[in-house]
């Protein structure tokens, strides 16, 4: 039932904890007024504070604090009304001041939790240990010159929220679900865009393995994994490596490793002995962060509906399956689209259209739901035409394709192309009679017991009516004639 990796000595359980670095959405950096936009010319978004010029001082960006608090509230976590910034000291060329300003002992957010949903329909609570604010470093470019390294400080000082999980994760699938769910919550909150390609969300993955019922064994940390798929692959590769080490009679050493997606393996980056002594101490340039309880309450009151609550509402109010509801709420834009399209319509039918035809269309055209060729209102109108029997579900698919193609509204398409459904029973009766008359042998077969011929007759009638016959009425007319 639960996930295990089969080794030579039997099944192994894996234990995973994640440290996710999420870039907080802010206009300016954590401690300076320089902008944070992605993709700018190298070193074009750097203030003297970011470059750690002599005498420059950090000033805390209040919006970054608000984003961290919103995120903490979204994770049902404890908000620490007093927190503090520390200096993490180490030398590197892309760390201008020689220290990173981070929160070590007193983070702004304490314990919280995230509920994840697995493919088998089960859910699990994964503990969040803490969330703290810290500044990002710059970027070293080693491939621009044969002997020199280049430094781009655009990222230096960008606000990050480091979200640390408990070692509660027990499978690659759970790890994937955790990152996706966290990303979804962050995007709902508007506190991080979750864009892993641009590096605004990345994960350090702590992995260990153990036999069932054992205490934790030594863990390794895989740094800077930048996609959900790689998180899952890295865990599996690292767990298998550790199992081989243990089963070979060796000992797993605590170390920092990197995941190589091309080879599908992790490799050592630095051992525990090479670990930095970061010499943390409170940053004397900054005062403790003291939050006003009323301000936190204000932020809380202004939080949007989050995916868990929305999913529960979709299930409860709309009768959707947990799976469909989960698919629809994963992205806020999808949920908003769905709710707009389903307003006043059959909610289950709307869900099928969104997760089926619409998603297929978006896939095919490479568009996102925000710039969908078919708007939520237009899809809603189409659903209305089905509901009032103007068109059949089958014709609706045709109309949908034309809407996607031309951008025209569904009613106009139906009118212009004469796709309105035929509900005139005399016309249907006439078509039925013609089909039966033209196929006496098939009628005989049917009467002799070949029940599946009924479908053939329906098809022939619909074909004769150019697909516009009301399917219910066609069925009823046939039944009346041939029983």
């Amino acid at each position, binding site marked *: 039932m639960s996930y295990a990796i089969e080794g030579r000595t039997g099944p192994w359980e894996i234990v995973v904890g994640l440290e996710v670095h999420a870039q907080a959405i802010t206009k300016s950096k954590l401690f300076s007024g320089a902008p944070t936009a992605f993709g700018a010319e190298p070193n074009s978004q750097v203030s003297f504070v970011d470059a750690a010029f002599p*005498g420059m001082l950090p*000033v805390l960006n209040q919006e970054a604090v608000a984003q961290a608090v919103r995120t903490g509230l979204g994770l049902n976590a404890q908000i620490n009304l007093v927190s503090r910034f520390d200096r993490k000291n180490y030398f590197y*060329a892309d760390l*201008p001041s020689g220290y990173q300003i981070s929160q070590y002992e007193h983070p702004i957010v304490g314990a919280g939790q995230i509920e994840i949903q697995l493919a088998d329909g089960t859910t699990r609570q994964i503990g969040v240990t803490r969330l703290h604010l810290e500044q990002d470093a710059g970027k070293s470019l080693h491939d621009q010159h044969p002997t020199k390294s280049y430094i781009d400080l655009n990222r230096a000082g960008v606000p990050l929220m480091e979200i640390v999980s408990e070692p509660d994760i027990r499978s690659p699938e759970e790890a994937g679900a955790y990152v996706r769910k966290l990303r979804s919550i962050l995007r709902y909150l508007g506190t991080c865009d979750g864009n892993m390609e641009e590096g605004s969300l990345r994960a350090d993955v702590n992995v260990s393995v153990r036999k069932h019922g054992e205490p934790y064994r030594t863990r390794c940390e895989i740094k800077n994994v930048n996609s959900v798929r790689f998180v899952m692959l890295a865990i599996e590769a690292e767990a298998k490596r550790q199992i081989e080490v243990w089963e070979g009679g060796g000992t797993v050493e605590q170390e920092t490793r990197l995941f190589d997606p091309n080879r599908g393996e992790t490799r050592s980056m630095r051992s525990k002995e090479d670990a930095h*002594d970061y010499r943390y*101490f409170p940053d*004397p340039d900054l005062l403790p962060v003291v939050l006003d309880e009323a301000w936190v309450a204000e932020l809380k009151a202004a939080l949007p509906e989050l995916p868990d609550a929305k999913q529960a509402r979709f299930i409860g109010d709309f009768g959707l399956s947990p799976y469909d509801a989960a698919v629809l709420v994963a992205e806020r834009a999808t949920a908003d689209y769905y709710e707009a399209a389903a307003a006043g319509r059959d909610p289950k039918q709307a869900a099928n259209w969104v997760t089926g035809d619409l998603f297929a269309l978006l896939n095919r055209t490479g568009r996102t739901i925000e710039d969908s060729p078919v708007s939520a209102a237009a899809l809603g109108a189409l659903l209305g035409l089905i509901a009032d029997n103007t068109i059949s579900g089958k014709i609706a698919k045709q109309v949908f394709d034309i809407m996607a193609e031309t951008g025209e509204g569904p009613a106009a398409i139906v009118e212009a192309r004469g796709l309105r459904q035929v509900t005139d029973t005399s016309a249907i009766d006439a078509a039925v009679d013609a089909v039966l008359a033209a196929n006496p042998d098939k009628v005989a077969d049917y009467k002799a017991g070949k029940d599946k011929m009924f479908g053939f007759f329906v098809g022939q009638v619909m074909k004769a009516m150019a697909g516009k016959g009301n399917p219910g009425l066609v069925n009823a007319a046939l039944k009346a004639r041939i029983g």
Partner: protein
Amino acid sequence: MVFDLTLAEARAGLRRRDFSSRELTSAFNGAIAALNPTLNAFITTTPELALQQADAADVALARGEHGPLTGIPLAIKDLFCTKGIRTTAGSRILDHFVPPYESTVSANLLRDGAVFLGKANLDEFAMGSSNITSAYGPVVSPWTRNGDNRPLVPGGSSGGSAAAVAARLALGATATDTGGSIRQPASFCGIVGIKPTYGRCSRWGIVAFASSLDQAGPVARTVEDCAIMLQSMSGFDAKDSTSADLPVPDFQAACKRGVKGLRIGVPREYRSDDMPPEIETMWQQGLAWLREQGAEIVDVTLPHTKYGLATYYIVAPAEASSNLARYDGVRFSSRTDGADLNELYENTRGAGFGPEVKRRIMIGTYVLSAGYYDAYYLRAQKIRALILKDFTDVFQTVDALVTPTAPSAAFAQGEKMDDPIKMYFNDVFTVPANMSGIPGISVPAGLDAQGLPLGLQVLGRPFDEETVFAVGAAIERAAGFTAVPGMRAGAGA
């Protein structure tokens, strides 16, 4: 003779148009050119820029549109970043650094019309008590002992600022005080220097030594001159998160308040058997003057003061070791190349920092290291809180404290240099004010038997510089200190 004017007198003269700022500035430019080769009080002089500023000041004065310091020539400690003017912090590693920005404090002075004569010498990164650690050579005190021509130290780290003011090479100077670097050189050079409350002056644009202790302040020849300068230098600055968002009181008015009815504390822990009798005598004399002017003298106790120096030499190097990490040769400081990044760091920092700076980086790195942090840094912070509590308690019952500024008069270059700990002992009376953030002033009270100035220190409540000025001015009035150093502008005339 303009050199004998105080800042306040020069200001009045300028406003009366007795002389122009150009005349005044030219005189100081000339004096610097004549004496700086001996005193080495300035690392960089900016005579032409000073004249331009003086001309602008004269235009403003002619229109009657003067600010509080319009046309007043000042020296700026070379720890304050000055836009377009090389700022070295006394270190080889910043030999070529020309800041593209102006520190808040020096910008405030420029806003108020000041003229900048140049950048004053200092101990490297303000680490020192004698100005011998400057990479640009030691500053020589304008004072000498009676019958002894050996060069004396001016104190430190603001030794260039203090020597320049004492030798009449500027009407005042900016300085900074992390463990006594304003008050001790003021005492050694027979001038006045005030370290205001931590947070009173913005630290923005001042090269950092120890961020939780560094505080800017002025040195000048009178208490009133310091009040005038501090008035301009002070004020809230949103760019410094530790800057105090409080109104700046009228410091000049406070100088005239008198001490009648004030309770003055005498902390018994500042008395020691090693203290030279002359300093003890002068201290008693100072207390007698205050009593005569109507103050009540009370014995008080500051039980944790004895730990002040030891904890200071943990906290300050710890912060310095981190603050100085940015001088890595990658962006703006002088670089000495290496085969790889680590070698570049080692070569750059090995060549760029002097021995005292290296010593403090080593101490600071050590006390913050895993396994030592709790025993040193954390413990020092706890004692620091107790030192502050001592002051808070004592200020429940007294309005100010009076102590000697330093445990000795100025010493000769070469004396006390064999043992860094002996040198650190210079800061024993001044460090507690930095550890607690309270304001302190040093006022010249007399000369020792060798003819060298001795200062008295007045400490006050946080953000109560007014009382500190009032008591300092009372001592100044009673002392009638008129002694002048042998080496000074206009001395031969």
